[in-house]
């Protein structure tokens, strides 16, 4: 695999190195955070007093995960609809139903303690996932069976709910459509003239995608793949930036969600496989090596078809998730040290990392797009 022309420019190489460094640096807390969650949850069951201690990992993971309600500020939530495809057909209700009133205060349940009954079926919500409720509660009042890692083992209905990420997905699509239909309108009204307004903001980036991503990797056949590359670039970039906005309509971790990156990577995979020409497949099944090397080469090449999009999927997911965890962790330093005096430091760091994240938002979109173009380019290359 010849990737050398990806790193054609010094600047690009610098950016790539920097991003990889950042990814490494920021994935580590994520790994630690997960270990923390498990330990602290375990601990909290043994000794309830430990619950008072602030758990940074649990907090961060809660914030980057998908959710059935949208936390606006304080005790204000937007409850999103729950849509389930169950054995008894489609069931829908508001996620506000997973609440109880305790001493006149609304308590939101995320520990499978509140059962919602619809169409003769009982549902509980635990860690923002919906399960079929058990018949009886366990010793903690939870209507689920837990394994030794405290994960619910109950069956789950097919969850087609409009979650926080789905809402963000819709919002981002509306933003993208509004922006680019306006840009397209600009080309109609300023026909043959210099770009104006939002058109002049977007044109350099569209040209960047065309001239620095598509044409160097795809050659003269670039035009066929431009709609995909442009859409994927702007979708990732806009959503990365939307994820950095800490309040409505941002704040969701859409491009840091494995389902989203999986679909994007799958699109690149499909384009690569369906557009692959005879040279590409020959390179995989009949590489130019002695026949006895085929035992090694063919499985490796076949494996490579799948590892490339999987790497795309993991890279975007890990970078964006890690960025979110990093910013959240820095903000949480105040609670970890339990002192307001730490706030200036934590804000200064968060602003610094936020600035870097803004850069990463663009770079990740760029890397995903250029690698997609590269993989497609390798599949459609004419001669060998």
């Amino acid at each position, binding site marked *: 695999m010849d990737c050398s022309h990806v790193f054609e420019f010094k600047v690009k190489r610098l950016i790539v190195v920097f991003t990889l460094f950042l990814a490494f640096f920021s994935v580590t807390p994520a790994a630690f955070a*997960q270990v923390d969650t498990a330990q602290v949850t375990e601990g909290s069951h043994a000794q309830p007093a430990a619950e008072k201690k602030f758990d940074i990992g649990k907090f961060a*993971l809660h914030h*980057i*995960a*998908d959710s059935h309600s949208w936390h606006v500020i304080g005790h204000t939530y937007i409850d999103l609809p729950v*849509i389930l495809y169950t054995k008894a057909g489609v069931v829908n209700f508001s996620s506000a139903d997973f609440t109880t009133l305790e001493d006149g205060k609304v308590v939101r349940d995320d520990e499978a303690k509140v059962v919602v009954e619809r169409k003769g079926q009982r549902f509980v919500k635990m*860690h923002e996932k919906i399960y079929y409720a058990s018949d009886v509660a366990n010793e903690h009042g939870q209507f689920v069976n837990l394994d030794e890692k405290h*994960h619910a083992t109950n069956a789950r209905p*097919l*969850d*087609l*709910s409009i*979650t926080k*990420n*789905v809402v963000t*997905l*819709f919002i981002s*699509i509306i933003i*993208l*459509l509004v922006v*680019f*239909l306006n*840009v*397209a309108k600009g*080309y*109609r009204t300023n*026909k*043959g003239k210099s770009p104006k307004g939002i058109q002049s903001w977007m*044109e350099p980036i*569209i*040209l960047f995608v*065309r001239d620095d991503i598509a044409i160097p990797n795809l050659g003269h056949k670039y*035009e066929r793949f*431009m*709609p*995909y590359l*442009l*859409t994927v670039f702007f*979708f990732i970039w806009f959503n990365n930036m939307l994820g950095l906005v800490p309040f409505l309509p941002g704040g969701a971790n859409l491009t840091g*969600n*494995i*389902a*989203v990156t*999986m*679909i*994007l990577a*799958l*699109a690149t995979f499909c384009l690569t496989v369906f557009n692959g020409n005879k040279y590409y497949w020959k390179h995989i099944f009949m590489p130019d090596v002695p026949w006895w090397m085929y035992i090694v080469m063919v499985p490796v090449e076949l494996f490579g078809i799948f590892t490339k999009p999987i790497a795309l999927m993991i890279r975007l997911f890990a970078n964006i*998730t890690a960025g979110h965890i990093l910013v959240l962790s820095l903000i949480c330093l105040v609670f970890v040290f339990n002192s307001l005096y730490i706030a200036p430091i934590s804000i200064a760091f968060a602003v610094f990392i936020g600035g870097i994240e803004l850069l990463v938002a663009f770079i990740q979109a760029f890397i995903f797009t250029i690698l997609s173009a590269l993989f497609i380019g390798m599949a459609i290359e004419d001669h060998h």
Partner: protein
Amino acid sequence: MELLLPEFGLVIFQSIAFLLLMFLLAKFAWKPILAAIKEREKSIDEALSKAELAKQEMARLTSQNEELMKSARAERDLILKEAKMLKDSIINEAKTSAQTEGAKLIEKAKIEIENSKKAALAELKHQVSSLSLDIAERVLRNQLQDKATQQDLVANLLKDVELN
């Protein structure tokens, strides 16, 4: 690990939404935008190449003008030179012709003078002869009375009249 497991609902929504987005943007945004950019680039390229052509044309015209100027100047010089030569030759010719003409006139005048002189001499001779005849007649009339004196007189007269 939960983070690494894709949720089915989001997978469905994402695939539908992304495909829809790509379709809409491709049809209503990317196609017209890329076409417009391409068209504009083409027109800019054309304008630039036209400008380049115009520049070349301009340079060509300038050099042509220069050439023309140069040749015109050379021609003018040539004409002037020729004119000068012509003038000189005319003057020279005039001079020589004037000279020859003058010489001719002088020659003619000389011949005329000679002729006049000859005529005058002839006239003179005629006059002298008539005069001498007259004289001789008178002398003869006078002297014929005395033969000797007559003869002396004739002799003396003839002695006096010398033909010059």
